[in-house]
């Protein structure tokens, strides 16, 4: 069964203090690994899609990387507005039919203090 595990569950950083969030996954045939950001009371907002090991993508202070077993979301010099829950999700190749199902992890709650 496909599975996504995120760590840590919660992370508190000082403004400017860089860190990384981890997403470990088990999937039969990875079609894509996704990072979403979720603010309180809102739906998830798309950040990145990674397709193969070695791939990296960047957006402002965020950089996502992918290996065969895990993905990291690196946050460089975070600001208070980066505070949110970061969700990792995978899409496998063996779900059948035309489904676009994502399997989400439980997320990492990031708090950046000024």
């Amino acid at each position: 069964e496909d599975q996504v595990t995120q760590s840590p569950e919660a992370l508190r950083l000082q403004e400017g203090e860089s860190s990384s969030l981890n997403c470990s996954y088990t999937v039969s045939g990875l079609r894509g690994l996704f990072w979403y950001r979720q603010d309180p009371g809102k739906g998830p907002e798309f950040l990145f899609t990674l397709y193969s090991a070695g791939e990296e993508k960047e957006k402002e202070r965020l950089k996502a990387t992918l290996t065969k077993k895990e993905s990291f979301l690196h946050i460089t010099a975070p600001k208070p507005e980066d505070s949110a829950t970061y969700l990792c999700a995978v899409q496998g190749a063996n779900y059948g039919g035309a489904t676009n199902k994502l399997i989400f992890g439980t997320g990492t709650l990031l708090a950046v203090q000024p």
Partner: protein
Amino acid sequence: EAGVAQSPRYKIIEKRQSVAFWCNPISGHATLYWYQQILGQGPKLLIQFQNNGVVDDSQLPKDRFSAERLKGVDSTLKIQPAKLEDSAVYLCASSFRAATNEKLFFGSGTQLSVL
């Protein structure tokens, strides 16, 4: 561009009652999804529509949950009768098509409390 619209924003019901949620996807998006997010968990797909046809409802508790997408635009998710464990946020999402490289756009969700 208008986002995914959902209503109501909040709903409180007693167990065994019925409830319905409405979603209007982004204009032109053929694929619509309903996800359930229980507090402290990641979203879980309940049902996926491609236009007005069901693509995946393998995780939908069909004895109590139903969904429809008439005319391939807006959609309704219904729970009848509700159980305590149905307390969750119900998120609607849409994408232009059903492909791995398609972004999903989520609405803000309906928070359901079953007492």
